Protein backbone atom coordinates (compact mmCIF):
# COMPACT_ATOMS: atom_id res chain seq x y z
CA UNK A 1 0.00 0.00 0.00
CA UNK A 2 1.66 3.21 -1.18
CA UNK A 3 -1.42 5.38 -0.95
CA UNK A 4 -1.78 5.43 2.83
CA UNK A 5 0.33 5.88 5.93
CA UNK A 6 1.32 2.42 7.18
CA UNK A 7 3.60 3.36 10.06
CA UNK A 8 3.21 5.99 12.78
CA UNK A 9 6.14 8.26 13.77
CA UNK A 10 6.66 6.00 16.76
CA UNK A 11 6.92 2.95 14.49
CA UNK A 12 3.54 1.40 15.25
CA UNK A 13 2.11 -0.30 12.14
CA UNK A 14 -1.22 1.00 10.82
CA UNK A 15 -3.22 -1.95 9.59
CA UNK A 16 -4.85 -1.58 6.19
CA UNK A 17 -6.04 -4.27 3.84
CA UNK A 18 -3.06 -5.26 1.73
CA UNK A 19 -0.39 -4.54 4.35
CA UNK A 20 -0.26 -7.96 5.95
CA UNK A 21 -0.41 -11.69 5.42
CA UNK A 22 -3.10 -13.23 7.59
CA UNK A 23 -1.56 -16.70 7.09
CA UNK A 24 1.77 -15.72 8.64
CA UNK A 25 0.00 -13.96 11.50
CA UNK A 26 -2.36 -16.89 12.10
CA UNK A 27 0.59 -19.27 12.34
CA UNK A 28 2.27 -17.01 14.92
CA UNK A 29 -0.96 -16.67 16.93
CA UNK A 30 -1.64 -20.40 17.02
CA UNK A 31 1.95 -21.09 18.13
CA UNK A 32 1.33 -19.07 21.29
CA UNK A 33 -2.01 -20.69 22.29
CA UNK A 34 -3.76 -17.42 22.94
CA UNK A 35 -7.33 -16.66 23.90
CA UNK A 36 -8.92 -13.34 22.99
CA UNK A 37 -11.99 -11.77 24.55
CA UNK A 38 -14.51 -9.24 23.28
CA UNK A 39 -16.43 -7.07 25.71
CA UNK A 40 -19.58 -5.28 24.62
CA UNK A 41 -22.59 -3.58 26.19
CA UNK A 42 -26.27 -3.86 25.22
CA UNK A 43 -28.44 -1.84 27.57
CA UNK A 44 -32.00 -0.62 27.00
CA UNK A 45 -32.41 0.65 23.42
CA UNK A 46 -29.24 -1.13 22.33
CA UNK A 47 -30.67 -4.59 23.09
CA UNK A 48 -32.08 -5.10 19.54
CA UNK A 49 -28.53 -4.90 18.19
CA UNK A 50 -27.42 -7.99 20.11
CA UNK A 51 -28.48 -10.60 17.59
CA UNK A 52 -26.94 -8.89 14.56
CA UNK A 53 -23.70 -8.17 16.35
CA UNK A 54 -23.29 -11.63 17.86
CA UNK A 55 -24.02 -13.45 14.61
CA UNK A 56 -21.60 -11.36 12.58
CA UNK A 57 -18.91 -11.34 15.26
CA UNK A 58 -19.17 -15.09 15.75
CA UNK A 59 -18.67 -15.50 12.02
CA UNK A 60 -16.04 -12.86 11.32
CA UNK A 61 -14.13 -12.00 14.48
CA UNK A 62 -10.96 -14.06 14.74
CA UNK A 63 -12.70 -16.89 12.89
CA UNK A 64 -11.14 -20.24 13.66
CA UNK A 65 -9.58 -19.08 16.92
CA UNK A 66 -11.17 -19.36 20.38
CA UNK A 67 -12.97 -16.14 21.39
CA UNK A 68 -14.78 -15.34 24.64
CA UNK A 69 -17.60 -12.86 24.14
CA UNK A 70 -18.56 -10.98 27.30
CA UNK A 71 -21.95 -9.32 26.88
CA UNK A 72 -23.09 -6.89 29.54
CA UNK A 73 -26.84 -6.43 29.24
CA UNK A 74 -29.92 -5.55 31.24
CA UNK A 75 -31.92 -8.00 29.13
CA UNK A 76 -30.22 -11.38 29.51
CA UNK A 77 -33.33 -13.32 28.39
CA UNK A 78 -32.96 -11.92 24.88
CA UNK A 79 -29.74 -13.83 24.41
CA UNK A 80 -30.50 -17.36 25.52
CA UNK A 81 -31.18 -18.79 22.06
CA UNK A 82 -27.93 -17.68 20.42
CA UNK A 83 -25.72 -20.41 19.00
CA UNK A 84 -22.00 -19.82 18.82
CA UNK A 85 -19.24 -21.53 16.84
CA UNK A 86 -17.74 -24.45 18.76
CA UNK A 87 -14.48 -22.67 19.60
CA UNK A 88 -16.25 -19.52 20.86
CA UNK A 89 -18.03 -18.85 24.15
CA UNK A 90 -20.67 -16.31 25.08
CA UNK A 91 -20.82 -15.10 28.67
CA UNK A 92 -23.82 -12.93 29.54
CA UNK A 93 -23.30 -10.58 32.47
CA UNK A 94 -26.44 -8.84 33.74
CA UNK A 95 -26.21 -5.12 34.56
CA UNK A 96 -28.62 -2.49 35.81
CA UNK A 97 -29.59 0.16 33.33
CA UNK A 98 -28.93 3.83 34.04
CA UNK A 99 -30.77 6.93 33.03
CA UNK A 100 -29.41 8.42 29.83
CA UNK A 101 -26.84 6.79 27.54
CA UNK A 102 -24.13 9.12 28.76
CA UNK A 103 -24.26 7.40 32.09
CA UNK A 104 -23.80 3.86 30.85
CA UNK A 105 -21.06 5.11 28.58
CA UNK A 106 -19.30 6.64 31.52
CA UNK A 107 -19.38 3.60 33.72
CA UNK A 108 -18.38 1.26 30.90
CA UNK A 109 -14.73 2.04 31.51
CA UNK A 110 -15.14 1.33 35.17
CA UNK A 111 -17.06 -1.89 34.61
CA UNK A 112 -14.47 -3.18 32.17
CA UNK A 113 -11.53 -2.39 34.42
CA UNK A 114 -13.24 -3.98 37.42
CA UNK A 115 -14.06 -7.14 35.51
CA UNK A 116 -10.57 -7.39 34.02
CA UNK A 117 -9.19 -7.34 37.50
CA UNK A 118 -11.63 -9.83 38.98
CA UNK A 119 -12.21 -12.15 36.06
CA UNK A 120 -11.05 -11.45 32.50
CA UNK A 121 -7.34 -11.47 33.25
CA UNK A 122 -7.65 -15.13 34.22
CA UNK A 123 -9.61 -16.09 31.12
CA UNK A 124 -8.09 -14.23 28.19
CA UNK A 125 -4.73 -12.90 27.03
CA UNK A 126 -6.09 -10.13 24.82
CA UNK A 127 -9.28 -8.15 25.21
CA UNK A 128 -11.17 -5.89 22.80
CA UNK A 129 -14.00 -3.51 23.52
CA UNK A 130 -16.53 -3.12 20.71
CA UNK A 131 -19.75 -1.17 20.38
CA UNK A 132 -22.79 -3.40 19.97
CA UNK A 133 -24.42 -1.28 17.28
CA UNK A 134 -22.17 -2.61 14.52
CA UNK A 135 -22.15 -5.53 12.19
CA UNK A 136 -18.95 -7.06 10.99
CA UNK A 137 -19.04 -7.28 7.22
CA UNK A 138 -15.70 -8.96 6.65
CA UNK A 139 -13.09 -10.87 8.56
CA UNK A 140 -11.30 -9.17 11.40
CA UNK A 141 -8.38 -11.42 12.19
CA UNK A 142 -5.25 -11.72 14.25
CA UNK A 143 -3.74 -8.67 12.61
CA UNK A 144 -5.45 -6.77 15.43
CA UNK A 145 -3.58 -8.65 18.18
CA UNK A 146 -0.92 -6.51 19.84
CA UNK A 147 -0.18 -4.87 23.21
CA UNK A 148 -2.24 -1.68 22.84
CA UNK A 149 -4.45 -1.27 19.80
CA UNK A 150 -6.64 1.66 18.77
CA UNK A 151 -8.74 2.30 15.71
CA UNK A 152 -8.39 5.53 13.77
CA UNK A 153 -11.76 7.20 13.63
CA UNK A 154 -13.20 7.72 10.18
CA UNK A 155 -13.55 11.34 11.30
CA UNK A 156 -9.77 11.60 10.80
CA UNK A 157 -10.40 11.68 7.07
CA UNK A 158 -12.95 14.48 7.07
CA UNK A 159 -11.90 18.05 6.16
CA UNK A 160 -11.63 19.31 9.77
CA UNK A 161 -10.81 16.41 12.07
CA UNK A 162 -9.49 18.81 14.68
CA UNK A 163 -13.07 19.98 15.27
CA UNK A 164 -13.95 16.60 16.66
CA UNK A 165 -10.76 16.29 18.63
CA UNK A 166 -10.92 19.67 20.35
CA UNK A 167 -12.23 19.68 23.86
CA UNK A 168 -13.99 22.97 24.57
CA UNK A 169 -13.70 22.48 28.33
CA UNK A 170 -9.98 22.73 29.11
CA UNK A 171 -10.61 21.91 32.76
CA UNK A 172 -11.71 18.44 31.71
CA UNK A 173 -9.24 15.64 32.40
CA UNK A 174 -9.63 14.75 28.74
CA UNK A 175 -8.42 18.08 27.41
CA UNK A 176 -5.59 17.93 24.86
CA UNK A 177 -3.75 21.16 24.04
CA UNK A 178 -4.35 22.38 20.51
CA UNK A 179 -2.20 20.77 17.84
CA UNK A 180 -0.82 18.11 20.13
CA UNK A 181 -2.82 15.11 19.12
CA UNK A 182 -1.52 12.46 16.69
CA UNK A 183 -4.69 10.75 15.50
CA UNK A 184 -8.30 10.77 16.57
CA UNK A 185 -9.24 7.32 17.82
CA UNK A 186 -12.73 5.88 18.12
CA UNK A 187 -13.92 4.43 21.41
CA UNK A 188 -16.05 1.95 19.47
CA UNK A 189 -13.20 -0.49 18.92
CA UNK A 190 -10.02 -0.66 20.97
CA UNK A 191 -8.13 -3.30 22.89
CA UNK A 192 -4.87 -5.10 23.45
CA UNK A 193 -3.26 -7.23 26.09
CA UNK A 194 -5.34 -7.63 29.19
CA UNK A 195 -2.81 -5.68 31.29
CA UNK A 196 -2.66 -2.73 28.87
CA UNK A 197 -6.45 -2.57 28.55
CA UNK A 198 -6.69 -2.63 32.33
CA UNK A 199 -4.36 0.35 32.62
CA UNK A 200 -6.26 2.22 29.93
CA UNK A 201 -9.74 1.61 31.36
CA UNK A 202 -8.53 2.40 34.88
CA UNK A 203 -7.02 5.69 33.77
CA UNK A 204 -10.08 6.66 31.75
CA UNK A 205 -12.55 5.78 34.47
CA UNK A 206 -10.53 7.81 36.97
CA UNK A 207 -10.50 10.76 34.59
CA UNK A 208 -14.23 10.43 34.04
CA UNK A 209 -14.85 10.24 37.76
CA UNK A 210 -12.76 13.31 38.42
CA UNK A 211 -14.63 15.24 35.72
CA UNK A 212 -17.92 14.11 37.23
CA UNK A 213 -16.91 15.33 40.65
CA UNK A 214 -16.06 18.69 39.14
CA UNK A 215 -19.39 18.77 37.33
CA UNK A 216 -17.79 18.53 33.88
CA UNK A 217 -18.68 16.27 31.00
CA UNK A 218 -16.00 15.90 28.33
CA UNK A 219 -17.43 16.45 24.88
CA UNK A 220 -17.39 12.90 23.61
CA UNK A 221 -17.37 11.17 26.98
CA UNK A 222 -15.21 8.10 27.22
CA UNK A 223 -13.89 8.68 23.71
CA UNK A 224 -12.32 11.96 24.81
CA UNK A 225 -10.65 10.30 27.75
CA UNK A 226 -9.49 7.42 25.56
CA UNK A 227 -7.83 9.89 23.20
CA UNK A 228 -6.12 11.69 26.02
CA UNK A 229 -4.76 8.42 27.38
CA UNK A 230 -3.49 7.30 23.97
CA UNK A 231 -1.71 10.59 23.44
CA UNK A 232 0.56 9.84 26.37
CA UNK A 233 0.58 6.04 26.03
CA UNK A 234 1.05 5.54 22.33
CA UNK A 235 -0.72 2.52 20.83
CA UNK A 236 1.59 -0.23 19.61
CA UNK A 237 -0.66 -0.84 16.62
CA UNK A 238 -3.31 1.20 14.88
CA UNK A 239 -6.25 -0.09 12.89
CA UNK A 240 -7.32 1.91 9.87
CA UNK A 241 -10.90 3.19 9.64
CA UNK A 242 -11.63 0.06 7.56
CA UNK A 243 -12.06 -1.57 10.95
CA UNK A 244 -14.78 0.75 12.11
CA UNK A 245 -16.52 3.14 9.78
CA UNK A 246 -18.89 5.61 11.44
CA UNK A 247 -22.18 5.45 9.57
CA UNK A 248 -22.91 9.03 10.60
CA UNK A 249 -20.49 10.36 8.00
Amino acid at each position, binding site marked *: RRDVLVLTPW*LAPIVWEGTFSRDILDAQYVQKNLVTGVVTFAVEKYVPFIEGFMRSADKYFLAGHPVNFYLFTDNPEKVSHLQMAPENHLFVIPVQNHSGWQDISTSRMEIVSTYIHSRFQHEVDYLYSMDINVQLLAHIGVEIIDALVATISSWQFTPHPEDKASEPRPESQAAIPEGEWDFYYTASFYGGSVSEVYKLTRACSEGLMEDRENGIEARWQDESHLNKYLLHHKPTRLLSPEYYWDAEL
Partner: protein
Amino acid sequence: RQDVLTVTPWLAPIVWEGTFNPEILDSAYKPLNLTIGVTVFAVGKYTRFVRHFLQSAEQHFMRGYRVIYYIFTDSPEAIPQAQLQPGRRLVTVPIQKYPSWQEISMRRMEAINRHVAEVSHGEVQYLFCLDVDMVFHNPWGPETLGDMVAAIHPGYFKVPREQFPYERRSSSAAFIPEGEGDFYYGGAVFGGLVRKVYEFTKTCHMTILADKANGIMAAWQEESHLNRHFLSHKPSKLLSPEYMWDDKKPKPPEIRLIRFSSVVKNYKEVRD
Protein backbone atom coordinates in the same frame (compact mmCIF):
# COMPACT_ATOMS: atom_id res chain seq x y z
CA ARG B 1 8.86 6.94 2.85
CA GLN B 2 7.09 5.73 -0.26
CA ASP B 3 10.21 4.38 -1.94
CA VAL B 4 10.87 1.49 0.41
CA LEU B 5 8.95 -1.19 2.30
CA THR B 6 8.35 0.06 5.85
CA VAL B 7 6.21 -2.74 7.27
CA THR B 8 6.67 -6.49 6.81
CA PRO B 9 3.75 -8.82 5.97
CA TRP B 10 3.69 -9.81 9.62
CA LEU B 11 3.34 -6.17 10.63
CA ALA B 12 6.85 -5.62 11.94
CA PRO B 13 8.14 -2.10 11.25
CA ILE B 14 11.23 -1.68 9.07
CA VAL B 15 13.22 1.24 10.39
CA TRP B 16 14.40 3.76 7.81
CA GLU B 17 15.34 7.41 8.14
CA GLY B 18 12.13 9.34 7.71
CA THR B 19 9.83 6.73 9.19
CA PHE B 20 10.15 7.81 12.80
CA ASN B 21 10.31 10.81 15.07
CA PRO B 22 13.22 10.44 17.51
CA GLU B 23 11.68 12.85 20.02
CA ILE B 24 8.48 10.86 20.38
CA LEU B 25 10.47 7.68 20.84
CA ASP B 26 12.80 9.27 23.38
CA SER B 27 9.84 10.56 25.38
CA ALA B 28 8.42 7.04 25.46
CA TYR B 29 11.66 5.22 26.27
CA LYS B 30 13.75 7.55 28.42
CA PRO B 31 11.36 7.43 31.41
CA LEU B 32 11.73 3.64 31.49
CA ASN B 33 15.29 4.00 32.82
CA LEU B 34 16.61 1.28 30.59
CA THR B 35 20.08 -0.13 30.38
CA ILE B 36 21.09 -1.28 26.92
CA GLY B 37 23.82 -3.91 26.57
CA VAL B 38 26.11 -4.35 23.57
CA THR B 39 28.18 -7.46 22.94
CA VAL B 40 31.21 -7.39 20.64
CA PHE B 41 33.82 -10.03 20.03
CA ALA B 42 37.43 -8.86 19.80
CA VAL B 43 39.50 -12.01 19.41
CA GLY B 44 43.08 -12.20 18.13
CA LYS B 45 43.82 -9.31 15.80
CA TYR B 46 40.24 -8.00 16.05
CA THR B 47 41.16 -6.15 19.22
CA ARG B 48 42.53 -3.41 16.96
CA PHE B 49 38.96 -2.41 16.06
CA VAL B 50 37.77 -1.79 19.60
CA ARG B 51 39.05 1.76 20.05
CA HIS B 52 37.35 3.18 17.00
CA PHE B 53 34.17 1.17 17.63
CA LEU B 54 33.92 2.55 21.17
CA GLN B 55 34.73 6.12 20.23
CA SER B 56 32.02 6.13 17.59
CA ALA B 57 29.55 4.34 19.88
CA GLU B 58 30.08 6.97 22.54
CA GLN B 59 29.12 9.59 20.00
CA HIS B 60 26.19 7.88 18.31
CA PHE B 61 24.88 4.78 20.10
CA MET B 62 21.90 5.30 22.42
CA ARG B 63 22.92 8.80 23.50
CA GLY B 64 21.44 9.65 26.87
CA TYR B 65 20.75 6.05 27.86
CA ARG B 66 22.63 3.76 30.24
CA VAL B 67 24.86 1.43 28.24
CA ILE B 68 27.10 -1.50 29.13
CA TYR B 69 29.67 -2.66 26.57
CA TYR B 70 30.53 -6.33 26.93
CA ILE B 71 33.82 -6.92 25.11
CA PHE B 72 34.37 -10.66 24.68
CA THR B 73 38.10 -11.21 24.17
CA ASP B 74 40.98 -13.66 24.55
CA SER B 75 43.34 -10.79 25.34
CA PRO B 76 41.82 -8.40 27.88
CA GLU B 77 45.09 -6.47 28.18
CA ALA B 78 44.76 -5.44 24.53
CA ILE B 79 41.44 -3.69 25.16
CA PRO B 80 41.99 0.08 25.37
CA GLN B 81 40.95 2.01 28.44
CA ALA B 82 38.25 4.24 27.10
CA GLN B 83 36.77 7.45 28.47
CA LEU B 84 33.05 6.87 28.56
CA GLN B 85 30.09 9.22 29.02
CA PRO B 86 28.35 9.10 32.42
CA GLY B 87 26.00 6.17 32.84
CA ARG B 88 28.02 4.02 30.49
CA ARG B 89 30.58 1.36 31.34
CA LEU B 90 32.72 -1.32 29.79
CA VAL B 91 33.26 -4.91 30.88
CA THR B 92 35.71 -7.39 29.35
CA VAL B 93 34.51 -10.98 29.17
CA PRO B 94 37.33 -13.51 28.81
CA ILE B 95 36.77 -16.20 26.20
CA GLN B 96 38.69 -18.96 24.59
CA LYS B 97 40.34 -18.48 21.22
CA TYR B 98 39.41 -21.12 18.67
CA PRO B 99 41.76 -22.22 15.88
CA SER B 100 39.79 -20.92 12.88
CA TRP B 101 38.00 -17.62 12.29
CA GLN B 102 34.86 -19.51 11.29
CA GLU B 103 34.82 -21.34 14.58
CA ILE B 104 35.42 -18.13 16.50
CA SER B 105 32.49 -16.55 14.67
CA MET B 106 30.11 -19.42 15.26
CA ARG B 107 31.00 -19.83 18.95
CA ARG B 108 29.70 -16.32 19.53
CA MET B 109 26.16 -17.64 19.91
CA GLU B 110 27.20 -19.97 22.69
CA ALA B 111 29.25 -17.31 24.45
CA ILE B 112 26.47 -14.71 24.30
CA ASN B 113 23.93 -17.23 25.52
CA ARG B 114 26.03 -18.28 28.47
CA HIS B 115 26.82 -14.70 29.37
CA VAL B 116 23.15 -13.71 29.30
CA ALA B 117 22.32 -16.56 31.64
CA GLU B 118 25.15 -15.77 34.03
CA VAL B 119 25.43 -11.99 33.94
CA SER B 120 23.68 -9.70 31.51
CA HIS B 121 20.08 -10.81 32.18
CA GLY B 122 20.36 -9.04 35.51
CA GLU B 123 22.07 -5.93 34.19
CA VAL B 124 20.30 -4.93 30.99
CA GLN B 125 16.79 -5.01 29.55
CA TYR B 126 17.81 -4.91 25.90
CA LEU B 127 20.90 -6.43 24.31
CA PHE B 128 22.45 -5.82 20.90
CA CYS B 129 25.03 -8.18 19.44
CA LEU B 130 27.24 -6.32 17.00
CA ASP B 131 30.33 -6.99 14.97
CA VAL B 132 33.36 -5.08 16.26
CA ASP B 133 35.00 -4.31 12.94
CA MET B 134 32.46 -1.56 12.34
CA VAL B 135 31.94 2.08 13.15
CA PHE B 136 28.94 4.30 13.97
CA HIS B 137 28.54 7.34 11.72
CA ASN B 138 25.07 8.56 12.68
CA PRO B 139 22.57 8.16 15.53
CA TRP B 140 21.45 4.73 16.62
CA GLY B 141 18.63 5.29 19.09
CA PRO B 142 15.51 3.81 20.70
CA GLU B 143 13.90 3.37 17.27
CA THR B 144 15.93 0.16 17.24
CA LEU B 145 14.45 -1.29 20.41
CA GLY B 146 12.06 -4.20 20.12
CA ASP B 147 11.36 -7.71 21.34
CA MET B 148 13.48 -9.34 18.64
CA VAL B 149 15.37 -7.18 16.16
CA ALA B 150 17.20 -8.17 12.99
CA ALA B 151 18.92 -6.09 10.31
CA ILE B 152 18.63 -6.42 6.55
CA HIS B 153 21.94 -7.29 4.93
CA PRO B 154 23.22 -4.43 2.74
CA GLY B 155 24.18 -6.71 -0.12
CA TYR B 156 20.74 -8.26 -0.54
CA PHE B 157 18.06 -5.72 0.19
CA LYS B 158 17.13 -5.14 -3.45
CA VAL B 159 17.78 -8.63 -4.67
CA PRO B 160 15.08 -11.26 -5.36
CA ARG B 161 14.69 -14.03 -2.81
CA GLU B 162 16.10 -16.77 -5.08
CA GLN B 163 19.47 -15.03 -4.91
CA PHE B 164 19.66 -14.91 -1.12
CA PRO B 165 22.73 -16.87 0.00
CA TYR B 166 20.77 -19.09 2.34
CA GLU B 167 22.21 -22.51 3.14
CA ARG B 168 20.79 -24.69 0.36
CA ARG B 169 22.02 -28.14 1.41
CA SER B 170 19.21 -30.06 3.03
CA SER B 171 21.67 -31.89 5.26
CA SER B 172 22.31 -28.68 7.18
CA ALA B 173 20.12 -27.55 10.09
CA ALA B 174 20.24 -24.07 8.55
CA PHE B 175 18.66 -25.27 5.30
CA ILE B 176 16.11 -22.97 3.65
CA PRO B 177 14.51 -24.38 0.49
CA GLU B 178 14.03 -22.39 -2.73
CA GLY B 179 10.85 -20.37 -2.67
CA GLU B 180 11.03 -19.71 1.05
CA GLY B 181 12.41 -16.81 3.00
CA ASP B 182 11.37 -13.24 3.74
CA PHE B 183 14.62 -11.26 3.87
CA TYR B 184 18.34 -11.92 4.06
CA TYR B 185 19.41 -10.77 7.50
CA GLY B 186 22.99 -9.95 8.40
CA GLY B 187 24.88 -11.64 11.20
CA ALA B 188 26.64 -8.43 12.20
CA VAL B 189 23.59 -6.96 13.95
CA PHE B 190 20.83 -8.53 15.99
CA GLY B 191 19.27 -7.87 19.35
CA GLY B 192 16.17 -7.40 21.44
CA LEU B 193 14.85 -8.12 24.89
CA VAL B 194 17.47 -9.98 26.85
CA ARG B 195 15.32 -13.09 27.26
CA LYS B 196 14.58 -13.16 23.54
CA VAL B 197 18.27 -12.91 22.73
CA TYR B 198 18.84 -15.77 25.17
CA GLU B 199 16.31 -18.00 23.37
CA PHE B 200 17.59 -16.99 19.96
CA THR B 201 21.27 -17.61 20.68
CA LYS B 202 20.46 -20.92 22.31
CA THR B 203 18.57 -22.17 19.26
CA CYS B 204 21.27 -20.98 16.87
CA HIS B 205 23.96 -22.64 18.94
CA MET B 206 21.99 -25.90 18.94
CA THR B 207 21.63 -25.92 15.17
CA ILE B 208 25.31 -25.03 14.76
CA LEU B 209 26.25 -28.00 16.96
CA ALA B 210 23.90 -30.28 15.03
CA ASP B 211 25.71 -29.35 11.83
CA LYS B 212 29.08 -29.88 13.48
CA ALA B 213 28.05 -33.39 14.50
CA ASN B 214 27.17 -34.05 10.86
CA GLY B 215 30.48 -32.66 9.64
CA ILE B 216 28.92 -29.74 7.82
CA MET B 217 29.50 -25.99 8.11
CA ALA B 218 26.83 -23.65 6.80
CA ALA B 219 27.60 -21.39 3.84
CA TRP B 220 27.86 -18.21 5.88
CA GLN B 221 28.47 -19.69 9.30
CA GLU B 222 26.19 -18.41 12.05
CA GLU B 223 24.58 -15.95 9.63
CA SER B 224 22.99 -18.91 7.83
CA HIS B 225 21.67 -20.25 11.12
CA LEU B 226 20.42 -16.79 12.09
CA ASN B 227 18.47 -16.59 8.83
CA ARG B 228 17.00 -20.05 9.38
CA HIS B 229 15.87 -19.07 12.84
CA PHE B 230 14.33 -15.77 11.74
CA LEU B 231 12.35 -17.54 9.06
CA SER B 232 10.45 -19.62 11.60
CA HIS B 233 10.50 -17.02 14.40
CA LYS B 234 9.98 -13.73 12.68
CA PRO B 235 11.63 -10.65 14.16
CA SER B 236 9.30 -8.08 15.67
CA LYS B 237 11.31 -5.23 14.17
CA LEU B 238 13.67 -4.94 11.23
CA LEU B 239 16.46 -2.43 10.79
CA SER B 240 17.13 -1.18 7.27
CA PRO B 241 20.67 -1.51 5.86
CA GLU B 242 21.34 1.98 7.27
CA TYR B 243 22.07 0.06 10.46
CA MET B 244 24.45 -2.40 8.88
CA TRP B 245 26.16 -0.93 5.87
CA ASP B 246 29.20 -1.99 3.88
CA ASP B 247 31.40 0.98 3.05
CA LYS B 248 32.78 -0.80 0.01
CA LYS B 249 29.35 -0.46 -1.62
CA PRO B 250 28.23 2.71 -3.40
CA LYS B 251 25.39 4.43 -1.56
CA PRO B 252 22.03 3.95 -3.35
CA PRO B 253 19.22 6.58 -3.11
CA GLU B 254 17.23 4.49 -0.62
CA ILE B 255 20.03 4.79 1.92
CA ARG B 256 19.70 8.38 3.14
CA LEU B 257 21.82 7.94 6.23
CA ILE B 258 24.53 5.45 7.04
CA ARG B 259 24.49 4.80 10.78
CA PHE B 260 26.74 1.80 11.24
CA SER B 261 29.12 0.36 8.67
CA SER B 262 32.02 -1.97 8.28
CA VAL B 263 35.60 -0.78 8.44
CA VAL B 264 37.60 -1.43 5.29
CA LYS B 265 40.14 -4.09 6.12
CA ASN B 266 42.33 -6.78 4.69
CA TYR B 267 40.37 -9.94 5.52
CA LYS B 268 43.25 -12.29 4.90
CA GLU B 269 45.62 -10.44 7.16
CA VAL B 270 43.27 -9.94 10.06
CA ARG B 271 41.77 -13.43 10.10
CA ASP B 272 45.05 -15.31 10.39
